[in-house]
């Protein structure tokens, strides 16, 4: 691969790598040897850098296949998604950063490195790129989950995440070894050719793909690989939980889409039953698990598993409509989650935990925050005027068209009602309970701005979806 081709495909990644290195130097020069570093300057560099990179992704032109990567409209969509996520997470982290005893400069740097890995995954067309990119994301997130070593729960989240993540990586490499053994190549296109040209998939290949599914299911948070999600979400610092719940889940979604639409392609029908079963279990586990939760971050973890179930249902459908639906779903999920986690950051400031009691009586303490959290919960639940409703509608419409998925469609409809129950329980706490803590909730103008942005996006794309639908359709077009 010559340098020009490298830059055409991995340009965004090169910029992100440079930004991360600049952040290290900025932190070093400005921190004066103190561990806490100078958060002001590094934060400014992070915002400016990520903002510039986000703008640059809108000028990317599809390039096609290279030796280690590809740049199609699907990859570009996800690069935009990941850089936007990183920017929103850093924005969300601004009021939280004071709680880090050390390493504020490194925090921005690690988020940028995780984003770099995610963007790499968006362009991968080779199992080597996939493995390296996935591990870059996972290992940086291990560090970020344990970023507050003074808190036992952060350490616990870190150690649980490391062990389960490393086992998932082991399964994935073992799977890749067998895929290589059966096809003689790490290239997605070659693997795809072997799959569609053979009457029956060779046993080694089938085994390899199933092992790969373990690794991807871990990222996506699909049952039975979801066990880490509640613990890690609860224990990790809140901005990191936001990154995990949006960015990390999106990498799982993206790779599952590549697996189902590009690698399996025409043979995806063989996997419908398997994906349908996983979707069934994931929907059941996520929704029923969310009901008894008393910690907001843990609650959002289970809610995330439930959403992964919806995405699995769309993947099992395997049609072009479902691919559009997945991209739309992820975009609405991004804003709903960022809003919810930012409210958690603000309300948990005094007690430093996210127990649900913290939002009791929020309507009296801050009507604005109450409104934001309510809109976010209703959007996640899929209540009509908000974007989340249309996302669920698109997934279900694609699944109904498929026909063979009826049992899961019916279950998912029941689960939407169950979801409505537990999301409305949160809303009930906001409006009907007495506050346990009536101190004034302070917010900077920037925080208000981000909350307002999320609410506007959730509301606007709920009533006027076509721009986002077109954007998602353009993104998914290159898969077919």
């Amino acid at each position: 691969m010559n340098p020009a081709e490298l830059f055409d495909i991995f340009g965004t990644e090169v910029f992100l790598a440079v930004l991360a290195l600049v952040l290290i130097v900025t932190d070093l020069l400005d921190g004066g040897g103190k561990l806490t570093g100078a958060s002001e300057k590094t934060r400014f560099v992070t915002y400016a850098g990520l903002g510039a990179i986000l703008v640059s992704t809108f000028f990317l032109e599809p390039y096609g296949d290279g030796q280690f990567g590809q740049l199609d409209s699907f990859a570009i969509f996800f690069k935009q998604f990941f850089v936007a996520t990183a920017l929103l997470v850093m924005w969300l982290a601004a009021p939280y950063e004071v709680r880090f005893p050390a390493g504020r400069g490194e925090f921005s740097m690690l988020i940028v490195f995780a984003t770099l890995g995610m963007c790499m995954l968006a362009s991968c067309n080779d199992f080597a790129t996939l493995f390296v990119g996935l591990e870059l994301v996972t290992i940086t997130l291990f560090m970020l989950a344990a970023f507050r070593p003074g808190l036992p729960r952060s350490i616990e989240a870190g150690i649980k995440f490391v062990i389960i993540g490393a086992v998932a990586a082991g399964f994935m490499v073992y799977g890749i070894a067998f895929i290589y053994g059966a096809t003689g190549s790490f290239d997605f296109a070659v693997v795809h050719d072997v799959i569609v040209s053979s009457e029956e998939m060779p046993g080694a290949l089938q085994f390899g793909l199933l092992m790969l599914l373990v690794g991807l299911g871990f990222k996506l948070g699909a049952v039975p690989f979801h066990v880490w999600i509640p613990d890690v979400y609860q224990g990790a610092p809140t901005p990191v939980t936001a990154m995990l719940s949006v960015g990390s889940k999106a990498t799982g979604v993206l790779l599952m889409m590549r697996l189902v639409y590009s690698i399996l392609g025409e043979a995806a029908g063989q996997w419908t039953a398997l994906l349908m079963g996983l979707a069934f279990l994931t929907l059941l586990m996520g929704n029923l698990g969310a009901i008894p939760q008393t910690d907001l971050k843990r609650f959002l973890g289970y809610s995330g598993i439930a959403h992964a179930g919806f995405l699995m249902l769309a993947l099992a459908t395997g049609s072009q409509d479902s691919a559009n639906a997945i991209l739309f779903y992820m975009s609405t999920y991004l804003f709903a989650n960022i809003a919810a986690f930012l409210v958690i950051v603000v309300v948990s400031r005094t007690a430093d935990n996210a127990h649900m009691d913290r939002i009791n009586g929020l309507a009296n303490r801050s009507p604005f925050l109450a409104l934001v959290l309510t809109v976010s919960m209703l959007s996640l639940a899929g209540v009509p005027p908000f974007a989340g409703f249309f996302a669920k509608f698109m997934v279900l419409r694609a699944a109904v068209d498929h026909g063979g998925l009826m049992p899961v469609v019916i279950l998912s409809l029941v689960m939407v009602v169950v979801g409505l129950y537990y999301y409305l329980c949160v809303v009930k706490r906001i409006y009907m309970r007495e506050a346990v803590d009536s101190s004034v909730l302070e917010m900077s103008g920037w925080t208000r701005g981000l909350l307002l942005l999320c609410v506007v996006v959730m509301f606007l794309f709920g009533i006027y979806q076509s721009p986002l639908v077109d954007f998602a359709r353009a993104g998914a077009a290159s898969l077919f």
Partner: protein
Amino acid sequence: MIQLEHYLYLSGLVFTLGLCGVMMRRNVILVLMGVEIMLNAANLALIAFNKYMLPIDGIVEPKGQVFVFFTIAVAAAEVAVALVIAVALFRRLDTVNVDDVANLRW
């Protein structure tokens, strides 16, 4: 004569041993050793597949062997981070037993 299957049986055995180690050991360091054993089983399978790969135009590209370098490098990074977290765990909670790390549940 040693065939591909023999290497694969060995690799499967090593992988299973590693997985058993992860699930049954209670010491974090030994759990991490189990993970390393799983990754090495995958490396063994990659190299064995490469060795017995049918040549195309008389050559076999050493792709599997190159992939092993990626795996080794990534495993080293992973274990470095894991050990840092294990040290932090020991300093904060005074234990390296995974059963004692169970404050977050349900």
